[in-house]
C-alpha cells in the first residue's frame, strides 16, 4: 500500500455487512433504494443509519419491494446519479426483469447481493443459485472471499460501472461473509475520492437536453445494441485491470479476477468461488502436507468469464474438480458448465469433474474437502457428484 494511504486508512473489526456499508459510503452514492431481506438487512440498516445521522449524504428510498428498489435506482441512474441497492435470493429473483432492463439501457449501477438459496422450501442460508441464475442478464458479476474484498470490490465496481456503462453485481456469501466479523483496512475518504471521481454521466434525463431512453427498437437496431453490449463485456477484463492498478495506487489493494494457489505442479486443481475459498485454502495446507499435489483456483469474476486466465491457470493439469454452490437442474453445477465451456477448445482437455459441494448453507469443513480428494478416484466424470 502507498505509505500515505496506509497511514490514512484505519484498521477496523467489522461485520461483513458493515464493511459493505462502509464501502458504499466511501463511494458517495446520490441515491440508495432498498428493501429488507435476510441476510442483506444489516447492510441497509447500517446505510440508513449513516444517512439518518448525516454521515452519508444520500437520498434513501425505503421502497415496498425489491422490484421497486432496483427500479428507483434505475430512475436515479438515468437522471445522472450514482445509485446503489443491495438484496439477496428471492429479492434478486424479483428484480430479474429490471436486471435485464438496466443492462440493456446502459446505465451504471452497483448492486450487492448476499448470496442465499431460493425456496421452496424456505432457506435463508448461503447458496449461489440466486446470482448464478442471473448470469445472462448483462451484469458484470464479482464474487468475494472476504469482507475486505467486498469493501474494495464495491469501490472498484462503482468505478467500473461508470466506465463501461454496464451494471455490476458484487456477491458476498450470506451469513458466511455478511454476518461474521473480520479485521480489515478501511481506506480514508480522500484516497477513495482520488480513485473515484464524481459520476460524470455521458447521457441523462435532462429537460435542457431532452432525450428518450428505452424506446422500442427494430429487430436490426436491437441486435446491434445487444452486440455492442456483448462487445463492451469483452473489454471488461482490460478495464478492470486498469481499475485494479489505479485502486492499488490509491488504496493499496488489487482486484484479481482469478487467483491461483499452488497450481504449478498440481495434479488436481479445485475450482471455487466465494467465501468457501477460505475453507479450501485451509484444506490445501493439510492435503499438501500429506503429499497430495492439489492446487486451487479462485474465481472472483464470473461475468465476463475470465476464460483466458483460466486456460493459463489450468496449464497442463489433467484433472479439475469444480466445487459448486449452484445447480442448473438437468445440466449439473453452474460453475462446472462455465469451466468446461472455457476449456473445451484446448487440444489437451483436462477432465472436469462436477461436484455439488453445498446448497442452502450445507456446512463445508476443511475435512469435507479432504474427503473429496480422498474419494477422487471414485468421482464420476459424466454425472454430477453429490456429497
Amino acid at each position: 500500500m502507498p505509505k500515505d494511504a496506509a497511514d490514512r486508512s484505519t484498521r477496523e473489526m467489522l461485520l461483513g455487512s458493515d464493511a459493505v456499508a462502509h464501502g458504499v459510503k466511501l463511494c458517495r452514492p446520490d441515491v440508495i433504494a432498498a428493501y429488507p431481506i435476510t441476510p442483506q438487512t444489516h447492510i441497509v440498516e447500517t446505510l440508513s443509519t449513516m444517512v439518518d445521522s448525516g454521515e452519508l449524504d444520500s437520498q434513501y428510498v425505503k421502497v415496498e419491494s425489491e422490484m421497486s428498489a432496483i427500479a428507483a435506482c434505475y430512475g436515479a441512474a438515468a437522471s445522472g446519479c450514482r445509485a446503489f441497492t443491495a438484496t439477496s435470493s428471492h429479492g434478486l429473483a424479483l428484480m430479474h426483469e429490471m436486471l435485464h432492463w438496466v443492462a440493456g439501457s446502459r446505465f451504471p449501477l452497483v448492486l450487492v447481493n448476499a448470496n442465499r438459496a431460493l425456496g421452496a422450501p424456505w432457506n435463508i442460508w448461503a447458496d449461489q443459485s440466486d446470482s448464478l441464475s442471473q448470469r445472462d442478464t448483462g451484469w458484470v458479476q464479482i464474487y468475494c472471499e472476504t469482507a475486505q474484498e467486498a469493501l474494495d470490490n464495491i469501490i472498484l465496481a462503482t468505478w467500473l460501472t461508470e466506465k463501461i456503462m454496464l451494471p455490476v453485481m458484487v456477491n458476498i456469501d450470506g451469513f458466511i461473509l455478511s454476518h461474521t466479523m473480520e479485521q480489515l483496512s478501511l481506506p480514508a475518504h480522500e484516497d477513495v475520492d482520488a480513485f473515484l471521481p464524481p459520476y460524470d454521466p455521458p447521457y441523462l434525463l435532462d429537460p435542457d437536453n431532452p432525450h428518450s431512453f428505452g424506446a422500442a427498437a427494430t429487430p436490426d437496431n436491437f441486435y446491434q445494441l445487444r452486440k455492442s453490449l456483448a462487445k463492451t463485456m469483452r473489454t471488461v477484463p482490460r478495464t478492470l485491470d486498469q481499475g485494479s492498478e489505479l485502486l492499488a495506487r490509491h488504496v493499496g489493494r488489487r482486484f484479481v479476477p482469478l487467483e491461483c494457489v499452488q497450481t504449478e505442479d498440481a495434479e488436481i486443481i479445485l475450482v471455487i468461488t466465494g467465501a468457501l475459498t477460505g475453507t479450501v485454502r485451509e484444506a490445501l495446507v493439510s492435503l499438501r502436507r500429506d503429499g497430495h499435489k492439489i492446487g486451487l483456483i479462485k474465481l472472483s469474476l464470473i461475468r465476463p468469464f475470465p476464460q483466458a486466465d483460466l486456460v493459463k491457470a489450468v496449464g497442463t493439469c489433467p484433472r479439475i474438480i469444480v466445487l459448486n454452490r449452484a445447480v442448473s437442474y438437468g445440466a449439473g453445477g453452474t460453475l462446472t458448465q462455465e469451466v468446461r465451456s472455457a476449456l473445451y477448445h484446448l487440444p489437451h482437455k483436462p477432465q472436469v469433474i462436477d461436484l455439488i459441494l453445498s446448497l442452502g448453507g450445507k456446512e463445508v469443513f476443511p475435512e469435507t474437502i479432504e474427503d473429496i480428494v480422498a474419494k477422487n478416484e471414485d468421482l464420476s466424470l459424466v454425472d454430477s457428484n453429490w456429497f
Partner: protein
Amino acid sequence: MLWNVTTAEYMNRGHMACPGCGASLSMRHALKALGESTIVVIPACCWSIIAGIFPTTALSVPLLHVPFATAAACASGVRRAQVAKKRTESTVMVWAGDGGTFDIGLQALSGAADRHEDILYVCYDNEAYMNTGIQQSSATPCGAWTSTSPGGKEFEYQKKDIISIVLAHAPAYVATACVAYPDDFYAKMVKAKQAKGFRFVHLLSVCPPGWKIDSQDALKVSRLAVESDVFPLLEMAEDRSLRRTYEPDGTVQLSDYIQSQKRFRSLTREDIQRFADQIKVRNNRWLGGAIRS
C-alpha cells in the same frame, strides 16, 4: 370560453397513435400545462409505441421507458435524483395506462403514494389492455367486450375504484379528467404541477378500436361518459373530500353512453340497470349524498 393555452408544442407530429386516440390528445394538452421542464416516465402501455420507434421520439421533453410494474418506483428514483442534484424545479410525471396502474403497477403506485414521493402520476385509462389487443383489465367496466371477456366482463367484477385506493394514501392532489373537457383538464394539470407531494390524475382515455366506435366519435363518446355520470369530473378539495368540477345537466342517460359503443353490445336492459346501480354506489362513495339522483 376564454382559455389561455400556450402555443408551444411538446408532442410532435409523427407519433404512432391510432386515429381518435384519447391518450395522444391527452398527452399533448398535459405537456402544454406542465411545460418544458418535465420528465416523463412511461411503463409498458400504448404510449410505449405512440412515443415512437428508436431513433424517433414524439416528445420534446425527456422520456424514460420502464418495465410494466415499475413506473411509480422509477419515477421515485428520477425525483430523488433531482433532489440529490438540486434540480427540483422540474416535474416528474408518470404516464401509465390502466393496466400499469390498476393491475401490475398498483404495488409500486401504492409504495410511491405511501412515501409521498413528489411525483405526478397520470393514468390514462382506456379500460383494457389495448396495446396488446384489447384484453380485460381491472379497469374494464362491467359488461364490456374484450378479447378475454368475449361475453362481456362479468358483473360480479366491478371496475376497480382506483380513486378511493389512491385517496387512502393521503395524497397531495387527486383529480379525474377527460380531454373532451380541455379547460377542466388543463386547469387540473396546472394545479397538479403546483402541488407538492404525490399527485394523481385519472384520465378517461377513449380508445376507438377497443371501444368499438368510429374514430370521429371519440370525443363525442368521451363526453357521453361524463354527461351520463359514468365518469364524473372530480377534484380533491382542501378537506380531502372529492368535489365535482363539472355538473352534468342530466339530459344524457347511461343507456346513451352504453349504446354509443359496440363493446357494450351484449348488455341487456337488466344489465344496464345493474351498471347504473353500481355507478350510483360508487359515486355515492366518492361524493357522499351530493350526487345527481
